[in-house]
């Protein structure tokens, strides 16, 4: 049976309570994309899993804002664990996406060179891709590039076509992973920050802000807080998170017609650089920047940076000059002092840390989950995988596939009304997002599940109706009270 606890945290003094919130084979700490994927894999393997998330909903950390690209790994570090997890994650995603109703936008990517110097780096990129087993890259001259993407600035020098770089839905994917974990016996507990814990030689007793949780194994998927969690519970951390912010500007859907592919810059050692990419929701976005910062949760945007991004995008695709802006956002990469993933195992204490999953975690999450399973089995864990796992579906939010409002006559009867006009979100979609296996736990969670208020008007027309429809649902609601007078 599935059990989902989503009681709002009011007290933090449950730690003395003798009764446990949950007992499981494995506790997964963190409801980012990595934690959700790990919970799914282990649940499918027949383990009893409990996912502990400190926020009221999943995806409040690094997984909140990314570029949503499903990477082939053509430019990943050679022979790295990252490359392996990206490759495996990529393949598993393509295997399972249809059954979970997750979309793929088969855009392909162009690595675009704008200077001779960048063209000179192409040889290295092609060699690396070859080594990584991505063999379908093609070098294009300016004419060929502009034939594929006529709206690109004609100052393009050359490009490499990477046909199998795709775009996915960054929020529905992890949601689907966690849903599948819960549909197959897993548990998720929200508002449950893991504060401390003890290992008694065979089991962990974790103290969360909601109470105790007992588990044989612990997987630390705390993303931006992974090092702190290790320090608190293990006494030391083998790495330090160096938060690195990336800001984005999202153009109106009209921009989507201008470009087909993901336009990548020639990457440097430090960053993949500023990308111009179609989103699964039908927009075109530019970003991310790479800004080191102290804060692990300050995802603020900055006027000058946004202006710079806008200028860069217009330089590459001049027609963007006439396209309005829909949104701006930022995400924070859980980078560490080293470039590679920081997978740390404490075999004597049944603990695995998936740390520093910096800039490819959306793609690699399913691969990381496979890797964790292997590590646990090496540690002696034995599970019996489910013979007929439940496969729950998530609602489609992709613009190129059928949305709720478009379902053909008969079925569409009863969608209630369109609540958010810019993103065409129906009342039925809102109600569904507030129910089910993983109901929205916050305003942001509702937006990520439905797209409501994420379009052009940013809530001008629909926020009032949403306030009404979500009354009493969230600790931090749309409306703070009644109007009087």
């Amino acid at each position: 049976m599935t059990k989902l606890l989503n009681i709002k945290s009011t007290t933090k003094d449950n730690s003395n309570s003798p009764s446990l919130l949950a007992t499981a084979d494995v506790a997964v700490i963190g409801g980012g994309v990595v934690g959700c994927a790990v919970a799914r894999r282990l649940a499918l393997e027949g383990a009893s899993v409990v996912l502990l998330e400190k926020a009221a909903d999943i995806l409040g950390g690094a997984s909140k804002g990314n570029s949503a690209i499903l990477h082939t790994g053509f430019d990943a570090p050679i022979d790295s664990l990252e490359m392996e997890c990206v490759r495996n994650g990529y393949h598993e995603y393509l295997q399972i996406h249809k059954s979970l109703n997750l979309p793929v936008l088969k855009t392909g990517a162009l690595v675009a060179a704008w200077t001779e110097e960048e063209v000179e780096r192409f040889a290295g990129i092609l060699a690396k891709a070859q080594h990584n087993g991505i063999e379908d890259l093609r070098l294009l001259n300016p004419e060929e590039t502009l034939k594929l993407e006529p709206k690109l600035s004609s100052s393009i020098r050359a490009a490499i076509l990477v046909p199998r770089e795709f775009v996915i839905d960054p929020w529905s994917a992890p949601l689907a992973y966690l849903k599948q974990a819960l549909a197959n016996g897993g548990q998720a507990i929200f508002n449950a920050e893991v504060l401390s814990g003890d290992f008694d030689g065979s089991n962990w007793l974790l103290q969360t802000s909601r109470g105790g949780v007992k588990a044989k194994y612990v997987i630390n998927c705390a993303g931006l807080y992974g090092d702190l969690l290790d320090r608190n519970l293990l006494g030391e951390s083998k790495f330090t998170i160096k938060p690195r912010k990336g800001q984005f500007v999202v153009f109106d859907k009209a921009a989507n017609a201008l470009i087909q592919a993901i336009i990548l810059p020639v990457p440097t050692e430090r960053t993949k650089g500023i990308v111009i990419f179609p989103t699964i929701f039908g927009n075109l976005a530019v970003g991310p920047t790479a800004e080191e910062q102290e804060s692990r949760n300050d995802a603020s945007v900055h006027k000058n940076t946004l202006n710079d991004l806008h200028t860069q995008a217009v330089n590459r695709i001049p027609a963007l000059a006439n396209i309005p802006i829909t949104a701006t956002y930022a995400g924070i990469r859980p980078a560490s002092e080293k470039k590679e993933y920081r997978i740390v195992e404490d075999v004597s204490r049944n603990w695995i840390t998936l740390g520093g999953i910096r800039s490819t975690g959306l793609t690699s999450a399913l691969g990381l989950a496979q890797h964790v399973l292997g590590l646990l089995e090496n540690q002696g864990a034995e599970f019996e995988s489910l013979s007929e796992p439940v496969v729950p579906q998530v609602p489609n939010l992709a613009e190129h596939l059928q949305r709720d409002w478009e379902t053909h006559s008969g079925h569409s009867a009863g969608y209630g009304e369109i609540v958010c006009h810019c993103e065409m979100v129906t009342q039925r979609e809102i109600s569904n997002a507030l129910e089910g296996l993983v109901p929205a736990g916050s305003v942001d969670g509702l937006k990520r599940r439905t797209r409501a208020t994420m379009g052009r008007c940013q809530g001008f027309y629909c926020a009032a109706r949403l306030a009404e429809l979500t009354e009493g649902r969230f600790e931090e609601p749309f409306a703070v009270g009644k109007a009087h007078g």
Partner: protein
Amino acid sequence: MDKSVLNDNCDVAIIGSGPAGLAAAILLKYSGIQKVVVLEREAEAGGIPRHCGHPPFGIREFKRILTGPKYAKKLVETALNAGVEIVLKTTVTSLGTEGELSLVSPEGPSQLSAKRVLLATGIRETPRSARFVSGSRALGICTTGTLQSMVYLKNRIPFRSPLVVGTEIVSFSALLTCKNAGIQPVAMLEEKPQPHVRWPIYQLTRWFCVPLLLQTSIVNILGTERVEAVQVSDENGNVREIACDGVLFTGQYTPESSLVRESHLELDPETNSPVVDSFGRCSDPVYFATGNMVQLPRNQARVPIFYLAENLPNPVDDAGQCWSQGRAVAKNIVKDLN
């Protein structure tokens, strides 16, 4: 309402049931046009005035001073009495050639074929994101339209002590709405040396005890879950923090014209309005546009009397003017059909 219009033909289809669309519909019926259908995506007709809970509306139209909601109701009644068909919860999703409209309603998708189409989808304010304002994306950031619809349609408030940005006419609507709802703004901000509208800004801000900060701009919005403070910079570049629980962005209008942008009709990139001739006709002669969705390029804009010409924002017409424009374009449609 009569759903029989769907998958059907009509003489004139009007998109949007605000003052402009309804005024046009009424005039068309009075002029003997047979089948006039108004398509409205909301559950209620009337457009923006539905949530402007204050006077003065209706002076020109009804020779009376009404609040926005009463005015909207009266317009709708007049239209229905004149024989206008108003179809609610029905969104126009695309504009085809030869007046072929794609619609969607809770009953499903449908088509409507019109001899003439009048676009009257109105205007909205520019949200924080498109203004590239720095800072957190916490709760409590909205526009006047959101505030008004929360207060007047849903009896709720999005914040208790917001910072108000802008000094256009709608900014005073915002102050009035705050006053009515028991919201006390902490300050009103204007980047320019003078407010956009002189009267009644000085009086109103004084009456409501809202400090008016001129030559002041937002540097950063602070707050994790909800807005906690805003850093502002004055004319000398001095930055200070103002505690507040929200930011209300007012004005900086932009036409609700995405339907046009995605269609075969020509759009003026400067104003985001459909390109129209002096008869209100779009680049496809079957289509007309009116009301606030039609903004003139800056150099041709009519200057409302209480605006200072030198610091004109995108000017916007009041409901009465939209009503007049709707009628004027409707007359052109009548001539065109006969």
